[in-house]
């Protein structure tokens, strides 16, 4: 029997990062996928990043992951969102050439000698004495492994809806996994059902873009004139190669939706799963917000020489013919040809409260879950979990402490903590407002925050580390220069440049341009590095306050709850609280305090009880 340290099921955005991270830590990895053609596939919109998601990508990159480099290499239009706001909420977004993206990732994995491809359909994990021992494929093949990572996206009991049509499928034209779903169920996991959707794809040649622009139906959307990379290692080569188009729905479209609403599986009871409210279907937009006269639609090419045009903002599950009707009712799309209809897909997910902070399940040792199976949506959320899970599967095999990021350290930390503590009621997407220490978690400092951590456990290689060290030194030198350089104020006083920078209306670019201070930057990352330093100096007070508040939370997060702790032993806790604790099995007092429905004093009692029993155990020893 062939054996691996780690087997990863699924080669989507979570799976590929997991395999890559585990391999980087020196583990032998089996990567199980139905086909090599759909590696890091983008079944939904052909884009990476966006608010908070862009942060996740920067963090993945800072920890040696693939996504940032992949999108820089295959992106065809780049934008930095929120540019008019502060650097804490700047977020990169890019359109991807989805074929090239997939090919790039595939190649990166092939270059990694520790990864073997297991082409086929996974059937069930093999579990012995409560711990993972291997994987059984549906053709009966056995593989041994010490850690098993499941990243099956929407494939668990996937069911696609297009009007009255219902088809078991994980994605367009791909079979779902029933057996795997059933085997997970048999371990006793709390399993729920979610729904997501995708819009129709149109044929590029059936749209006369120039005319639609001329007639005022479409507005061209271009990338930034100076594209910003996602990856800290990208030094050049970013190119905007395409245009996207913005248009709007009309009353006529809304009327058509209302007219056909009974044919929507979302509105006639055919769909049970809960969909994401931040990504409403066209049906929801029209029915829930009748006062809105129009909604935005973006037409996005799925690649440089790909025929498909993605109709962003137009996801729906209405019947094929109605979809065609609706598309052609959009201004400028009267002749559009629908290549593929939009659809809704329902799928099983495992309540992430089943997971530890390492994303290993509480129930089965060595079994790790990442991505949509944990109730999240989005490539970036999946990839970020994949990275964590791959590292942790490897660290578990190596007998080392898991990689757990704090809520004040990374968006990844916020996401994992939210998932395992609160569970999911709807697909989980990252937002900057979920990060209470947002001011500390910027895209410009993702590497300063995380790369040293990644290097310590082996996620970052020597070359990357050398580059990072240079950048870190440059950053501290620049900060020091600002403190030491004296500049003149309007009143003629001489003060340090950093003090000057704290005054309203003074910007660092101004001090540089006037020759008052001399700092060093790398060309491609210049504007981010400038922002980084300026932000740290200008808002030092806010950042200090933020760090202090983070430290208060940290103190609680350092108090550990033992594995398999029996909450019923704690006097004074109500039955409901004991039940909540037992479901979530918090690993720290801090996590316990974030569980919904748990009172502050209950947490204090738990903390004190743990402290006292720790004392008495120490006495006994």
């Amino acid at each position, binding site marked *: 029997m062939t054996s691996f340290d780690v087997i990863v099921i699924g080669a989507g955005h979570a799976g590929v990062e997991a395999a890559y991270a585990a391999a980087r830590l020196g583990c032998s990895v089996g990567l199980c996928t139905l086909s090599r053609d759909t590696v890091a596939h983008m079944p939904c*919109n052909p884009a990476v990043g966006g*608010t*908070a998601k862009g942060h996740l990508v920067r963090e993945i990159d800072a920890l040696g992951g693939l996504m940032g480099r992949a999108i820089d290499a295959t992106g065809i239009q780049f934008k930095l*969102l*929120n540019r008019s*706001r*502060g*650097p*804490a*909420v700047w977020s990169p977004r890019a359109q991807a050439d989805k074929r090239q993206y997939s090919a790039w990732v595939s190649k990166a994995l092939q270059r990694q000698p520790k990864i073997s491809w297991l082409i086929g359909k996974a059937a069930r994990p093999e579990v012995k004495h409560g711990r993972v021992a291997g994987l059984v494929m549906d053709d009966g093949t056995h593989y041994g492994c010490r850690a098993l990572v499941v990243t099956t996206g929407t494939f668990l009991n996937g069911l696609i809806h297009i009007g009255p049509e219902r088809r078991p499928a994980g994605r367009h034209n791909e079979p779902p996994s029933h057996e795997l779903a059933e085997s997970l169920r048999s371990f006793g996991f709390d399993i729920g059902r979610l729904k997501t959707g995708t819009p129709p794809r149109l044929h590029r040649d059936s749209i006369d873009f120039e005319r639609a622009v001329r007639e005022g139906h479409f507005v061209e959307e271009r990338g930034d004139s100076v594209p910003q990379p996602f990856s800290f290692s990208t030094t050049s080569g970013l190119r905007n190669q395409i245009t996207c188009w913005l248009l709007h729905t009309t009353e006529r479209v809304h009327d058509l939706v209302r007219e056909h609403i009974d044919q929507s599986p979302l509105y006639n009871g055919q769909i049970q799963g809960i969909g*994401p*409210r*931040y*990504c*409403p279907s066209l049906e929801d*937009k029209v029915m*829930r*917000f009748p006062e*809105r006269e129009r*909604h*935005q*639609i*973006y037409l996005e090419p799925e690649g440089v020489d790909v025929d498909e045009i993605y109709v*962003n*903002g137009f996801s729906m599950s209405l019947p094929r013919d109605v979809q065609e009707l609706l598309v052609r009712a959009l201004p400028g799309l009267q002749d559009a040809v629908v290549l593929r209809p939009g659809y809704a897909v329902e799928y099983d997910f495992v309540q992430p409260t089943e997971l530890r902070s390492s994303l290993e399940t509480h129930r089965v040792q060595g079994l790790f879950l990442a991505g949509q199976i944990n109730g999240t949506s989005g490539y970036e959320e999946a990839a970020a979990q994949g990275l964590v899970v791959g590292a942790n599967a490897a660290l578990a095999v190596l007998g080392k402490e898991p990689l757990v990021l704090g809520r004040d350290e990374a968006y990844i930390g916020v996401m994992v903590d939210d998932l395992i503590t*609160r569970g999911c009621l709807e697909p989980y997407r990252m*937002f*900057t*407002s*979920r990060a*209470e220490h*947002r*001011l500390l978690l910027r895209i410009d400092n993702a590497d300063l925050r995380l790369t040293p951590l990644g290097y310590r456990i082996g996620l970052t290689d020597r070359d990357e580390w050398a580059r990072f060290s240079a950048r870190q030194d440059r950053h501290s030198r620049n900060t020091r220069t600002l403190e030491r350089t004296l500049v003149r104020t309007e009143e003629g006083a001489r003060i340090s440049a950093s003090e000057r920078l704290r005054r*309203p*209306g003074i910007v660092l670019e101004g001090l540089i341009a006037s020759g008052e201070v001399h700092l060093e930057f790398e060309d491609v990352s210049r504007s981010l590095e400038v922002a980084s330093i300026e932000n740290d100096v200008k*808002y030092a007070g*806010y950042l200090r*306050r*933020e760090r202090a508040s983070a430290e208060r*939370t940290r*103190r*609680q997060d350092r108090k550990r709850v033992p594995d398999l702790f029996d909450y019923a032993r704690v*006097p*004074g*806790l*109500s039955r409901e609280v004991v039940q909540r604790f037992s479901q979530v099995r918090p690993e720290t007092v*801090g996590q316990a*305090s974030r569980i*919904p429905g748990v*009172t*502050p*004093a*209950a*947490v*204090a*009692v738990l*903390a*004190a009880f743990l402290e*006292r029993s720790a004392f008495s155990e120490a006495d006994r020893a």
Partner: protein
Amino acid sequence: MFSTDDSIVAVATPPGRGGIGVVRISGPESRRIAEAMLTRREPLEARMATFTRVAAKSTDVIDEVVATYFPAPRSYTGEDVVEISAHGNPVVLQAIVVRALEIGARLAEPGEFTLRAFLNGKRDLIQAEAVADLIAAATPMQARVACDQLEGTLTGQISEIDAELFSLIASLEASLDFPDEGYHFIQPAETSRRVAVVVGKIDALLSAARRGRVIREGATVVVVGRPNVGKSSIFNLLVGSDRAIVAAVAGTTRDLISEQVDLDGLAVTLVDTAGAREATDEIEREGIARAERASGIATLLLIVLDGSQPLSRDDEQLLGRTSDRSSIVVTNKADLPAAFEREGGVSVSARTGAGAEDLRRAIVRSLTGEESLRDSAALSNVRHIELLTQAHTRLVAAQRLVDIGDTPEEFVLADLQAARAHLEEIVGARTSESLLHHIFDKFCIGK
């Protein structure tokens, strides 16, 4: 999170009764906090009662106290504890508590000393019944709020303010998280205006604070006047028993005498004092000095005149000295022929009891204003005031940033979110999840 490692303070003895009250400070900082408020410069010694004074900055009260430091773990709570025994007057005790808060203590929630005692193994939870409520309450404040109707109204008002702030924050957060939605969630001018509205409402609540504190904590009403005008007689009349010695000798009352009385549901601490005149001996001099200090901190003064005697220079001086204080002039001995005519005030006879009801009503009206007690939401404890004040500070900071205009929204939001956190310590916290709910319900978001 309910913090268990900071320092907390509260009056530890039941209100009213008894001549001595104890303020307890517990936690790692308790000794530093106590030493900072005591006039004695030497450090407190463990388990030694130290006679000294408390200097309370905010009200200028200086009172003699006995301070005792109990190092952990041999203390009531098992932590470092300082107990300050002072004169039982609630106002004095409150002033000591306020001073401790200024130096860095946090006001203890009801049952919190006991909770800590339990947490440190000093007590069985079953014994500590007060703790059960605390554990059940979602926020520390709720434990207190549940038991008081008045506070319910107050919490309602803070809730409304919080909801307004929350919805403003939601709009701002939406514009950060959904920058390409094609519509602006909120403009700076609108932000500034809405912050101003919230600031205004908090201002109103804070200015109601004084009245509210009267309602919750009771007022101190101090009886003053020249010797022998019948102060002690009036004190006894209001108390309903012969608590103070009454005698025809001028200078009978030497020290402060205080008693808790209930006037129409209002808890009032009534204080009888030594008559104001040139003292004849050391004890009387000290008594008069104390009378002056007591009148200095009084919520309301009852200035007693003897109606059967013409007004003396002492009377005139007293009236002049107290003209800017909230006071009621009480003309006593109405059973005897009047020696002068005087507009306003209340006329009573301590001997016959005539006018007693008028006097009671006048006191209540003067303490509470014209509003009916039951409907007015008011800030009822120092903790509320403290939290509202903090929220206020952060909101004002936020507004300044908005008005200056060159600070990115996320910093404005940092201030607004901090303000919200302060309010929600009173009314119960909302999560980032509920923020997103609010955004999705209100706006059509997403592609």
